[in-house]
């Protein structure tokens, strides 16, 4: 008995327990209420099913969440990512060009510039925009929410300017592979997320980068006095967040083969912040878990997909989503759990006794 309680405490104290529990609850709901939710079949040589959709649709959000986690860990926030997505798509689409040409009845693939150039340009522009945010926060010393608000507002205008207010349709089919292609039967977007995730995880753990970022989030003044180049790391976090938003923008743009300056990535900055929070990360900075944020993004997309699958009327989908999110947040809140479990513990005296003894 004692061992089980100990084990339970170790498990629940793990950072990833509650995000995983939230994901499990959402999936469990679908197991009972949505028919064939877990069925994955093979269609046209790739996996096909609701779970695959969730992973594929969550990919841009997972990327945003990875970037956002680092920014949040430095005690900052980046609310410009939604607009950066729109700019990324706009740059790529306008460079590839919306040309539909037929030669002898078959479509001829034409681009204004080679596709890799367009992709690199889009990522360069978005990384630059991230650097701009970093500059405002780290060097100029503007509060993060205000500094990134500038780009949130201006960004959509910039995207509109690039696309000249039109939705650019990309007819160059190879571009579609980024957001809608499959590699070894699995959505290509998943490989992109894994690559970004692996590279940043390696950098964080094999170098002192992760430690520095956490230190800055916990106490930036103390970090500076202990010799950490604080402004450099804050700058890099925002630049990386811009880069992640750029990749997410390419995926979103490629998935529907068009760039929509008005709607691409609209309100996604909020989902990204929510993913970070659902991942068990404190918005107050400091210790962070990248994997937690990625799971948080999966939870959000699972909720959205479940809502579509269960046929909730469109008028109330947002309310349903909000209620689910509130419940998950409450579940994760330590003080809320203390209140609930304190009552539960009183009935089983031994549990609370052992707790007090250990404390």
């Amino acid at each position, binding site marked *: 008995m004692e061992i089980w309680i100990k084990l339970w405490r170790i498990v629940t104290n793990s950072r990833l327990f509650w995000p995983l529990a939230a994901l499990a609850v959402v999936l469990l709901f679908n197991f009972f209420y949505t*028919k064939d939710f877990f*069925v994955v079949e093979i269609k*046209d040589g790739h996996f096909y099913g609701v779970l695959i959709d969730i992973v594929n649709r969550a990919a841009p959000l997972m990327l945003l969440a990875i970037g956002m986690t680092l920014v949040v860990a430095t005690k900052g926030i980046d609310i410009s990512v939604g607009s950066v997505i729109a700019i990324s798509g706009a740059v790529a689409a306008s460079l590839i060009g919306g040309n539909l040409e037929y030669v002898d009845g078959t479509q001829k693939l034409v681009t204004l510039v080679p596709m890799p150039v367009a992709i690199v340009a889009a990522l360069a522009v978005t990384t630059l925009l991230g650097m701009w945010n970093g500059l405002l926060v780290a060097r100029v010393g503007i509060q993060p929410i205000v500094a990134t608000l500038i780009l949130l507002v201006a960004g959509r205008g910039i995207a509109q300017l690039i696309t000249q*207010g039109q939705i650019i349709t990309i007819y160059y089919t190879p571009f579609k592979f980024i957001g809608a292609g499959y590699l070894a039967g699995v959505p290509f977007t998943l490989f992109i997320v894994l690559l970004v995730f692996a590279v940043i995880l390696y950098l964080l753990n094999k170098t002192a980068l992760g430690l520095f970022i956490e230190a800055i989030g916990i106490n930036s003044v103390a970090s500076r006095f202990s010799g950490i180049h604080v402004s450099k790391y804050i700058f890099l976090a925002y630049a990386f967040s811009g880069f992640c938003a750029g990749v997410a923008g390419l995926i979103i743009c490629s998935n529907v083969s068009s760039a929509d300056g008005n709607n691409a990535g609209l309100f996604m900055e909020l989902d990204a912040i929510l993913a970070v929070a659902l991942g068990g990360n404190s918005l107050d900075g400091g210790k962070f878990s990248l994997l937690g944020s990625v799971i948080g993004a999966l939870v959000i997309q699972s909720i959205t*997909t479940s809502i579509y699958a269960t046929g909730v009327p*469109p008028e109330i*989908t947002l309310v349903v989503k909000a209620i689910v999110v509130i419940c998950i947040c409450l579940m994760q809140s330590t003080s809320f759990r203390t209140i609930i479990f304190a009552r539960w513990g009183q009935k089983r005296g031994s549990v609370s006794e052992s707790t007090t003894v250990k404390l």
Partner: protein
Amino acid sequence: MFKGIRIAVALVSAAMLILVAGCGGSEQGAAKPGDKIVLGFSQIGAESEWRTANSESIKASAKEAGIDLKFSDAQQKQENQIKAIRSFIQQKVDVIAFSPVVETGWDAVLQEAKAAGIPVILTDRAIKMSSGNAEDYYVTFMGSDFVEEGRRAANWLVGFMKKDNEPVNIVELQGTVGSAPAIDRKNGFEEILKGHSNYKVIKSQTGDFTRAKGKEVMESFLKSAKAEGQKIDVLFAHNDDMAIGAIQAIEEAGLKPGKDIIIVSIDGVKGAFEAMIAGKLNCTVECSPLLGAQLMEAIKDLKAGKTLNKRIVTKEGVFPADVAAKELPNRKY
């Protein structure tokens, strides 16, 4: 004594005011026939291809009709529109037309226009007054009838399917929740289908008028319909962009859009015509921004002393796939 002077001044200024007001009236009446009609038009902005085509149509038609157009772009702001209308009143234009960016808040400026005796035409969007009847403040409201568009989509569908008894399962991609086109198009569509009980909307969800959401929701529809053992026969999308997104989802599910699933949407943008030529979309119901010619005609009628209908519906067509190739070169938006 000073009191007496004050009263005299007040009297004189009151008299002058009346005179000025009188002059204003007579000046308007004195406009000679043959003079160019002056139209003040306040546009919302240039937020979409649709709106740009709308502006272009008004500018081109004014030129053609020999009407002097004073065009002002409000950049999505009501205060800019109110300023523009006030300046039109000061310039004593013959007619004011505008696409209201929001429904309410026009009371004061429209009263000023009415006091100045300048007729007002609403284009594309309607208004509400906080008190009194809005209809007293404009001569006509010209624009698309969203309910009629929904009816046309349903009518085309019933005529195309030619099925009276077999069940027809429809999925619907709604526009932004609460927006006028989404509500009206849904109502119009359902109104016609009431008379055909074998047509059933089995799933309906919002796709926010965007390609990305249209695709995501359609993906989900396809899977849940399959899990529930239902066959989707028809997709009705409240705009072309959602249909274009959904077409990709249908293709990725290994089905043939336009054949396995019949698709009808609304707007008539270029992309829809390209999809129809490729055989992936079956029909688009036009929601035309090209109301310039009708607007100029209405203004000329007005100046000739005719009374206009309070509601003028834009001339719009229904374009099935077989006319798409012929129609595409004519599309302006």
